[in-house]
């Protein structure tokens, strides 16, 4: 029999390399392309900017001199400290609040959960200037409720924290709602049977099960507060934080080298937080077994009533802040002429771009939503299901996580320096709509990527193997099976991209061209020009558009589901 001759051959074969089939090579090529996009859209620009931290204004290498100079600036430690403590305090306020809200949505029997879920999203649907303006209307020195502050000024840390709480609330609540939505009912029953009280069950079952969600929520809120500069700029007074330090260095002093230094400093807490999150994610595996039985809350007044009150209070606060902004957009001149008017919506009076800016924004956001979603989802699929990419896959995975930690201002500046470099073959993008689209996609890449990966990981890992055994190319299986099944997640990603790109300011303020000014920038311009009612009006219009898109997604959700997800029914 042939076995006898084998041992001699085996070592020789062991050294042979498998032939890489064409399809696997194509998939690997796809991943390489994705890597190229990410490198061009994030790594190289960021590198170009951060290199400046080690240069003098003329481009000479100065080592750590800029860092030394910055470290001796007295305001550094103050700004860093301010950033850290406002972020920490905001986190400490938002996360418990969001936890209560998410808990009510997932673990209680309160009515109108759908309404609360929708209201929860309000803050992300508008530019961050909106809450700041509304807070000024409410708590400013002429504010309707200024007495509630007991003589303290809204300008400064109080305003920053209140506005940030508003702005970060949906992010934390979304994460926590997801974390709390999966629970093993059996654990609760086991604890009940062992005679644990409600508090003990909460402490020994609920909290531990949600702890990775809590870590994630804390990390996201902390990072958002540290990197956001819109709110501190408008309502922070002269209260220095790291994000406004970048603004001061870059916009006030045109000192890019120093701006890069602060940008790097700013990356630190964000990267640390990010590492903490990764660590928590890794601990998570094997927590919930496949045999778990989903938890369904039963009515209990002692829990439901307080939670309903909490939800009403939170929803009331969110709605009234937006309502104040809407009202503010309708008054003639706050606070001296409160006659209602629609003139503030005649944007062409206030800004040359006028309504065109809104149209620009919609075009940019829609293009980015479509192209970005395609890019993100395909890349995630290649990562999860393509042929093993080794180092390339590792690089893509890592890079995909970075944007969350990069402040928009840093990203915008990085884009100018990189894409406008005369030697850059991609320079033709500069000043076009395309660069705004690319910037938007890169800026919000991380969350889109995580959503896509989560959706893909829920699919049976053998789909592609089955396809291969049936000699169907992986791409066909991607188109016929993966995409249709993941359509709800894909829509989520697209709407997320659309909404965020509609409202973002910090990165694009450096990048728009003569014909591509986005509405979110127009809002800032109008506010700077003293036309705060018009600014509020534009912000409200953006809110109307994003809210319509979100509502459209919810409304068509049913239709889309019926058309493409009929197979889910039993």
């Amino acid at each position: 029999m042939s076995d006898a001759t084998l041992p001699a051959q085996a070592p020789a074969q062991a050294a042979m390399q498998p032939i890489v089939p064409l399809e696997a090579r194509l998939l690997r090529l796809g991943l390489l392309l994705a890597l190229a996009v990410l490198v061009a859209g994030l790594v190289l620009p960021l590198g170009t900017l951060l290199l400046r931290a080690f240069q003098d204004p003329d481009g000479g290498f100065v080592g750590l001199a800029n860092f030394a100079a910055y470290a001796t600036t007295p305001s550094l430690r103050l700004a860093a400290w301010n950033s850290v403590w406002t972020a920490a305090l905001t986190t400490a306020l938002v996360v418990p609040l969001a936890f209560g809200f998410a808990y009510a949505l997932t673990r209680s029997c309160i009515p109108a959960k759908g309404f609360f879920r929708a209201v929860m999203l309000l803050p992300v649907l508008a530019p961050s200037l909106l809450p700041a303006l509304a807070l000024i209307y409410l708590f400013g020195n002429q504010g309707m409720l200024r007495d509630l502050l007991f003589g303290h000024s809204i300008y400064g840390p109080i305003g920053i924290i209140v506005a940030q709480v508003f702005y970060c609330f949906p992010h934390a609540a979304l994460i926590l709602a997801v974390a709390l939505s999966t629970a093993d009912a059996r654990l609760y029953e086991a604890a009940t049977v062992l005679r644990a009280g409600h508090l003990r069950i909460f402490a020994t079952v609920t909290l531990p099960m949600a702890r990775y969600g809590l870590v994630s929520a804390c990390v996201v809120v902390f990072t958002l507060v540290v990197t956001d500069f819109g709110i501190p700029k408008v309502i922070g007074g002269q209260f220095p934080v790291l994000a406004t330090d970048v603004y001061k260095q870059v916009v006030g002093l045109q000192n890019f080298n120093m701006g890069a230094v602060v940008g790097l400093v700013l990356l630190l807490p964000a990267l640390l937080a990010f590492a903490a999150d990764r660590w928590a994610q890794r601990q998570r595996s094997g927590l919930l077994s496949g045999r778990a039985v989903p938890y369904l809350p039963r009515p209990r007044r002692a829990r439901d009533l307080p939670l309903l009150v909490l939800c009403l209070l939170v929803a009331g606060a969110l709605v009234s802040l937006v309502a104040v902004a809407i009202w503010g957009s309708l008054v003639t001149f706050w606070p001296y002429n409160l006659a209602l008017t629609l003139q503030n919506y005649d944007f062409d009076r206030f800004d040359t771009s006028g309504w065109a800016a809104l149209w620009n924004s919609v075009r940019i956001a829609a293009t980015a939503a479509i192209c970005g979603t395609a890019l993100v989802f395909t890349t995630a699929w290649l990562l999860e299901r393509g042929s093993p990419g080794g180092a390339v896959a590792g690089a893509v995975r890592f890079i995909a996580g970075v944007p969350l930690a990069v402040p928009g201002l840093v990203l915008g500046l990085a884009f100018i320096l990189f894409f406008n470099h005369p030697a850059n073959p991609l320079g033709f993008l500069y000043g076009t709509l395309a660069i705004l689209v690319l910037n938007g996609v890169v800026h919000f890449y991380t969350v889109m990527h995580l959503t896509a990966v989560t959706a893909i990981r829920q699919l049976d890992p053998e789909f592609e193997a089955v396809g291969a055994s049936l000699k169907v190319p992986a791409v066909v299986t991607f188109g016929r099976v993966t995409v249709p099944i993941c359509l709800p997640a894909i829509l989520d990603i697209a709407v997320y991209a659309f909404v965020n790109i509609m409202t973002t300011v910090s990165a694009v303020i450096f990048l728009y061209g003569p014909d591509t000014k986005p509405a979110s920038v127009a809002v800032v311009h109008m506010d700077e020009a003293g036309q705060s009612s018009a600014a509020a009006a534009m912000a409200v219009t953006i809110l109307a558009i994003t809210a319509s898109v979100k509502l459209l997604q919810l409304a068509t959700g049913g239709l889309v589901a019926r058309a493409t997800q009929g197979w889910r029914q039993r």
Partner: protein
Amino acid sequence: QQRTRLTVYTALENEQLAPFKRAAEAAVPSIEIAWVRDSTGIITARLIAERQNPRADMVWGLSVFSLLQMEAQEMLEPYTPQGADALRPNFRSDRSPMTWTGMDAFVSAICFNTVVAQQRNLPRPSTWADLLNPAYRGQIVMPNPASSGTGFLTVAGWLGAQGNDAAWTYMTNLHENMQVYTHSGSAPCNNAARGEYGLGISFDMRAVTLRNQGAPIEIIVPTDGVGFDLEATALMRGSRNLEAAKRLADFAVSRPAMELYGRYYALVALPGVQPAVQNYPAEFEQRLVSQNFRDVALRRDAILREWSGRFDSKSAPRN
């Protein structure tokens, strides 16, 4: 005939863009203007960031301090527009050919909210020195000179009018009354207009806009010497439409252009053009301190470092 599209960076007020464009395109039919407008700081930062591969053909309406910064970095295309020699000497580049030409002067002024003043019993100030009155404690806002061109212009004005030592003493005393140093040059006046504070120090044009919306503010140009800045024009080195840009630069110093500026600004670069702005003091020109822009621009870093050292680090909120 194909019109040349010029990318023009500007920090002019939004409402000025349309009339300026109309006038320029009428006067020079071969061009079409595409504006990129943003605040002074952002536009300057963008221009400098784009230095290696300029996207702007021209700058029309930007602080002369910014232009001097760019001149130092060899970013400006020297060109003496036709008729530029007629401008006030102080209002044009001293190089030959010129690197920039002035359009008009704007100053740091006080936006004084009369309603708040009545409520709080605040006297109407007429000089910078008046602002030291303890009655104004916590009622004054000004831009942070490190973040805002207007803030720097104000500080530069004090230094020019009062001399170094006296000016720093003045600022130290004023700091006691100051509520907030904002990051934006417009914010102080905006806030004063909304009654958030009684007095805001901003550049004058902002106040006009607000007043026209119905804000109860009075624009006060202090009589004890105000710092001023020029809005100016320059050609960018590396422009791909240099010839067309030169035509626009010629228009920018022409008399019709100056008359246009005069509709918004109290002092224009061309002597003899009578500005027609409402609510401006007649003797506006006399209140300007005399200052050497290049000199101030050169000292900018030192001034800001000094300022930051004195006031930035104590910027805990004051109530």
